[in-house]
């Protein structure tokens, strides 16, 4: 009986340790900035998918690409690796996962607010799989003056995830994070 409870204590102590370590890993990984949008962290963007403790005893940080060919993904993996190493968490593995598929809905409210504060219009909420009509330009709110009139300059922008717009009221150009 005593032995059993002793084992139990050991088990809970181990669990507690694992929980603490997971929290530490999450805190470190969540601080990694996106190389293209340095004001946003990978947690804000929903690219930091999960932090796991496997039954084999491994700790794994799971990252997911925004766009499949986004060149920043490799950089993000390397930066996450570096951040973990610097925090003394070299035993943690960094893994790239595709499933479940990332969409702009994974961007947090905080992430959206940060985007707006830096002159990037956050993605609109997805319209239930309705394809956008040809030649239609969705009305994007200007992140500078919040006017609703804007025009699209370019459907593709400086990174795979953005398009270029111009506000028709304050005339400032701005980037729109595409709904994906």
């Amino acid at each position, binding site marked *: 009986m005593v032995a059993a409870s002793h084992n139990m204590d050991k088990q809970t102590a181990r669990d507690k340790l694992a929980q603490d370590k997971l929290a530490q890993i999450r805190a470190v990984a969540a601080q990694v900035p996106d190389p293209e949008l340095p004001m946003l962290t990978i947690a804000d963007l929903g690219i930091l998918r999960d932090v*796991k*403790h*496997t*039954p084999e005893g491994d700790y794994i940080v799971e990252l997911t*690409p925004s*766009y*499949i*060919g*986004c*060149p920043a993904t490799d950089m993000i993996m390397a930066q996450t690796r570096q951040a973990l190493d610097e925090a003394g968490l070299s035993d943690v593995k960094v893994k790239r996962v*595709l*499933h*479940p*598929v*990332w969409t702009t809905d994974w961007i947090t409210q905080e992430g959206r607010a940060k985007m707006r504060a830096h002159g990037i219009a956050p993605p609109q909420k997805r319209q239930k799989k309705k*394809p*956008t009509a*040809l*030649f239609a330009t969705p009305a994007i709110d200007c992140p500078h003056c919040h006017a609703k009139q804007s025009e699209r*300059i*370019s*459907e*593709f*922008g*400086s990174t*795979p995830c953005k398009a*270029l717009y111009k506000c028709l009221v304050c005339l400032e150009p701005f980037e729109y994070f595409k709904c*994906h």
Partner: protein
Amino acid sequence: MATKRTATKAKAKAKAKAKRTAKKPAPAKIRAKKQTKRIKQAGGGVAPTTRFEQAVKSWKKPDKRFVAYLIALGDDQLVLAQNLIQWCGFAPTLEEDIALSNMGLDMLGQARELYNYAGAVEGKGRSEDDIAFLRGEHEYQNLLLLEQPNGDFAQTQLRQFFYASFMVPFWAHMETHCLDETLQAIGGKAVKEMAYHARHSAEWVIRLAQGTDESRRRLLQALQALYIYTGELFAPYPQAEAIRQAYHLPDPAQLKPLWQAKVADIFKMADITLPAEAVMQTGGRIGRHTENLGHLLADLQYMQRTYPGLSW
């Protein structure tokens, strides 16, 4: 007497064999039970494996046909990527320059994903670079349509429109039906990218057809050049026919009506009629290519062929 003895011997042998075979699965079962217990204790950290995944893992050898299918599918994306990226710095406007490069980047990303996965399934340590750079022209199994030269802007946009209109239902099928989880995920990402390409290129097809006499002439010329290669979109992958059912892979032939409807829809808006009957060219899927692929690969593979093993 002797026969009796051999009979009993045989019986005993059979019994022993039965005993052996009966006992065999037990440790595995216990292992599996312990495993699930461990997973439960760890808070169910591992996603439940489907019966299909277990079946795949239990196969002793990787399915060569599946590897070949992944590579062929990757070839399509890589060849188109290589073509599109050549517009970088040459497109008619800055916006289109960015657009074509971005589309090329999407294609390249899909190719990398497929090649990496093919290498992992194959298990012989082939990397994405080995697959892309160290295969000859006849080992490439891409569609002839995709290796056609960029031509002018109209030809590039029309090629993209023809291909993207096909790949949207293709990847959508992959995402919802395929039993392989990685292909499902690639499909889920690629379908959105291809939908974007389809829309962008469809707008250009309409714009060019309804623009000036010159833009319309060029688009019609592109149609003449490319239409004979569209029939191959619906040709089967030779290596995938046998495994299509098992993996629930999309059947290109079944996507034909969807593609035709989409093309008819856009061409109606562009006021273009499809050429009546054309002799469709095929051969890419069995490694028989047009001249263009050789030139394209010579450019793509130059560094690796000249300095084998060169790396960043």
